């Protein structure tokens, strides 16, 4: 049982480049989330999904896009990377059966230069 798997673990992007952060879970959780973690700022919600085909914006969605074509996968797309997107990104999933306790991925450390 792998839980939540994120790839890649590290990435350096140049300004203006694009990339996709992958997230997959094998717990059949309906709910999935992308957060970014910045020093001293806690975790901020970027996008979330309550099921396949349903996504919605979180607190800091600008510069990002998501899709949820299957229950398992919730990729995060960065278009036209900017230095402000340098951060650690976490994917998480949960379900009512888990009492809404989150299972997190290991994170992606992204640097935009």
């Amino acid at each position, binding site marked *: 049982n792998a839980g939540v798997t994120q790839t890649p673990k590290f990435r350096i992007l140049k300004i203006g480049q694009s990339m996709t952060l992958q997230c997959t879970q094998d717990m059949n959780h309906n709910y999935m989330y992308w957060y970014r973690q910045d020093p001293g700022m806690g975790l901020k919600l970027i996008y979330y999904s309550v099921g396949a085909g349903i996504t919605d914006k979180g607190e800091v969605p600008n510069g990002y896009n998501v899709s949820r074509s299957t229950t398992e996968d919730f990729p995060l797309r960065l278009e036209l990377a900017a230095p402000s997107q340098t951060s650690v990104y976490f994917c998480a999933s949960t379900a*009512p059966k888990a009492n809404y306790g989150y299972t997190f991925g290991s994170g992606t450390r992204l640097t935009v230069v």
Partner: protein
Amino acid sequence: AQRVTQPEKLLSVFKGAPVELKCNYSYSGSPELFWYVQYSRQRLQLLLRHISRESIKGFTADLNKGETSFHLKKPFAQEEDSAMYYCALRISGNTGKLIFGQGTTLQVKP
């Protein structure tokens, strides 16, 4: 406004000393609160939730609605407790969204 505040960025204690990590929240609905922990080079993981009223690794947290607090406590800190701790508030409704505090780094010195 919905908000979670952890007033201390860093809490440093000696091994064996009591620990209290503070968490205050602002929320008009019925709060559901969690503590998450991130040990060095590990992923974030759930430590405990208030509805379970559980003790995990010697930590407890009591929801105080009058003071809108959910402080995390441990009577005797261990070096392996050194980590980043996040308090989180679940928004009511069917989204499961959490609002996280800024996090507190706990450093337990030998």
